[in-house]
């Protein structure tokens, strides 16, 4: 005879512990499979992070290495070589003007005849400047350097420059405007050709700095309300005899070449006194308002002689930008200046105090925008170099913002190895532009095309992305409610792999009661199966125990005797 109370028991009740265990296991297995499914995880992550700033520091750093590889920072100087308007020159003898005008007609002996004129007229700056400009236009830089430097060294030229410098900003002193402009153009041409030829030395620095000093006289002579035009205002310096146009040389062109000079000569060193004088400031702007000043202060305090070139560049850029911004002029629109300043700011970001980085990046993006907008003003000879600079800016910005590249860069004509890095960063930016795609690629490793494009770079990029995303999620979980926090942390666990460094905030889930235990080595369905079996067994044990207790409770006051009698009566 069976125990009477058992006869009444429904079979499902008899099986309840097993069924409970099975249901728990199945539910958890399905949950785990779904919860760890790359598509589901990626979707959840994208929803969680939607509308938030995704700070992917490690990934950006990794991509920056590739950008440096594909598009190294090349600073673009302003071109020189615009010929004087011979006919309108007033300070040159008419005979010489006529002779030079005749030689400029395009024919085979043009350079030879200009050379003769240059040799026969050592007292005039005109033949030397014209010959130098023609040689520059024809790309004969070495010869242009020889002619231009020689002209600069002539006593008449030196006397003229001394006269300009001694006049300073006294409008009434110094030689006439035409001669001042001729000297500025001559110096600028020497500076440009030396930058192009990578020739450093005192002559270079003199050729880059002196025209800026000379331009003060022009500014004084164009004074309004008896005030000289300040250096932060762009002052056109057309070729001698010419009227100012949009493409004329300007004071900004002079600043650009000085900036490029610093950045291209990494061994640049000045004396202590000059440094003190150049880097000291009478004002103390807050870092959020003047990031370049904050960067200047930091690099001055943490002095490193190997980066003196950078400090000089920062110092000059800071002066120019501050004055413009303080006077409500906004960021400069000159494409060369904008491009070079933006490129400089990307380098400065590493040494900039954290507080100032945001403003620095805003200014940098504004400058990049100006550079893009003014691209058409760049002479065709420099267009490719300029485009590479723009592309670099675009890539760095896209990497920082996690968005895809919007402009096609097919005409950059990069060498194959640079093209490879270029394609890789283009592919990662495409993936990162969509949070869901990014998360999915991190989990799955990416499609074949993506793998091919990244090649050996893929492992490092995936590791950096994994860390960034887990850090982001851990940070996001920190301020949430307990259940939500654990849910987000579990989600973050999906992105971890064995060997990944520990992320703060994730380790709190390391306990046996968490079924999604931290086993980066075990993922996907094996993990789901193990978790499900574990949970199933625990559920079975618990339900069995609970059933037993309920039965015990009921049987405490049960009369088996009565039940058996009732059973017998029924039969």
């Amino acid at each position: 005879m069976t125990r009477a109370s058992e006869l009444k028991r429904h079979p499902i009740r008899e099986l309840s512990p097993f069924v409970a265990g099975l249901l728990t296991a199945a539910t958890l297995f399905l949950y785990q499979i779904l919860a760890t499914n790359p598509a589901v995880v990626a979707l959840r992550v994208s929803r969680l992070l939607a509308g938030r700033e995704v700070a992917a520091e490690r990934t950006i750093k990794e991509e920056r290495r590739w950008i440096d590889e594909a598009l190294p920072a090349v600073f673009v100087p302003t071109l020189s070589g615009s010929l004087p308007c011979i006919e309108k020159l007033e300070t040159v003898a008419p005979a010489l003007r006529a002779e030079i005008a005749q030689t400029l007609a395009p024919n085979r002996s043009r350079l030879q005849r200009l050379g003769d004129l240059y040799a026969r007229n050592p007292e005039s700056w005109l033949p030397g400047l014209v010959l130098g400009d023609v040689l520059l236009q024809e790309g004969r830089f070495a010869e242009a350097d020889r002619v231009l430097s020689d002209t600069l060294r002539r006593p008449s030229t030196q006397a003229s420059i001394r006269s300009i410098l001694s006049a300073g900003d006294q409008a009434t002193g110094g030689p006439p405007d035409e001669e001042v402009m001729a000297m500025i153009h001559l110096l600028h041409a020497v500076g440009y050709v030396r930058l192009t030829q990578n020739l450093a030395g005192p002559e270079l620095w003199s050729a880059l700095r002196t025209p800026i000093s000379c331009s003060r006289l022009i500014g004084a002579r164009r004074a309004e309300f008896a005030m000289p035009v300040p250096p932060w205002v762009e002052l056109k310096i057309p070729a001698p005899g010419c009227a100012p146009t949009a493409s004329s040389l300007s004071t900004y062109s002079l600043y650009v070449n000085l900036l490029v000079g610093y950045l291209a000569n990494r061994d640049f060193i000045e004396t202590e006194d000059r440094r003190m004088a150049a880097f000291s400031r009478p004002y103390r702007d807050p870092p959020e308002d003047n990031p370049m000043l904050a960067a200047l202060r930091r690099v001055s305090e943490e002095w490193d002689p190997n980066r003196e070139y950078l400090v000089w560049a920062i110092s000059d850029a800071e002066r120019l930008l501050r004055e413009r911004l303080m006077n409500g002029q906004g960021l400069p629109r000159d494409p060369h200046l904008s491009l070079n300043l933006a490129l400089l700011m990307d380098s400065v970001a590493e040494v900039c105090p954290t507080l100032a980085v945001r403003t620095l990046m805003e200014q940098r993006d504004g400058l990049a925008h100006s550079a893009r907008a003014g691209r058409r003003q760049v002479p065709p000879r420099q267009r490719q170099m300029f485009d590479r600079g723009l592309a670099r800016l675009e890539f760095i910005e896209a990497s920082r913002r996690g968005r895809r590249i919007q402009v096609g860069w097919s005409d950059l004509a990069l060498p194959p190895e640079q093209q490879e890095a270029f394609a890789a960063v283009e592919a990662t930016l495409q993936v990162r532009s969509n949070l869901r795609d990014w998360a999915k690629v991190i989990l799955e490793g990416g499609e074949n095309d993506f793998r091919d494009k990244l090649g050996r770079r893929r492992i490092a990029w995936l590791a950096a992305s994994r860390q960034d995303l887990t850090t982001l999620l851990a940070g996001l979980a920190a301020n949430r409610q307990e259940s939500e926090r654990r849910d987000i942390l579990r989600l973050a666990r999906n992105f971890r792999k064995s060997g990944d460094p520990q992320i703060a905030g994730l380790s709190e889930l390391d306990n046996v009661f968490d079924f999604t235990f931290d086993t980066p080595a075990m993922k996907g369905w094996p993990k789901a199966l193990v978790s499900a079996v574990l949970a199933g067994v625990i559920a079975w044990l618990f339900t069995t125990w609970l059933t037993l207790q309920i039965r015990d409770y009921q049987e405490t006051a049960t009369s088996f005797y009565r039940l058996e009698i009732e059973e017998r009566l029924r039969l």
Partner: protein
Amino acid sequence: MRYEGTDSGIDSATAQLEEFIRRGYEVYLVAGIPGAGKTQFLASYSQGGFLLDRWAREGRRVLPTSVESLNSYSFVFESGRRKIIFLDAAGERFTLLYPRLHGREITESHIKFLRLISRRLKGFVFLLDLESLWGAAGTGSHTDAAQINILSWLLELLRWLLYDGKHEPGPISLETRIDASVRRMRKRLRFPVLVLFSKADLLPGLPVPNRVFQGDPEIHRTLYPPGENPLLLAYHLLPELFESLRTHANYFHFDFSHSLVTHRDTSEVIDAQPCGVDSSLRWLLDSSWRWPRIPTRYFVAIRRLIAMIARNNRWRRLPAPDELTS
């Protein structure tokens, strides 16, 4: 197996018991005063057919276990994994263990048998003859009246054997030593204890002694086993028994049972179908006792609490027996 007779017979039985224990048999002890129906109770248990066979072999009669004898029924229980031995010791032998009944001290030799089985003891059944207990005032013996005391003493002994068991010969008697030790003891018996009010077929109409109602002459209550709640019955009518189990055992159950009904004179089987035996023994032999369980006293406390909240009077006064439903 059946061992009976002299001390040497018991020694032989002890040696065989040791062998069973060595082979991993679980031991279940059945106790009660002489004539409580222990042997019939075991014979009625039809599990596996073994006992029925034996019963049939012996001419469908169950002989009483003679004094100084030990019946043991061994059989493989359930799916062959469990090996179980029931020990049915003669009632007289148990009464010998209760020193106050005979006015003599117990010695180590008296408890030798209990000490041996205590190591593998997995359950304990005590058959209580209510007719003898309540009739003892008029016609019964001392033994009949002392059934509850005997049970309490046995539980105390088992508790001491399991969780202490040390005794050095000296001026302090073994009984005093056991008393003192158990009083300090916090551990209770962890095996199930089943208390059966035996011969339930003879109990209907048995008057409940008036003393249990504090001498209230207005209350005249007779027993009706099929309609009684055995837990409430023990709580109200046998408070010493209830308290003893609550003190010494973690898991206990009260119930009625009647075994084979035989003719008083001819021992002829009148009713071959026992009641309250199988279910009770199944409760005792349940393999789930190895699981951690909530002690019965807590369930009793929960029931009392629920009754208190529900303003139910059943824990204040013994309720009238229920009618049988068919």
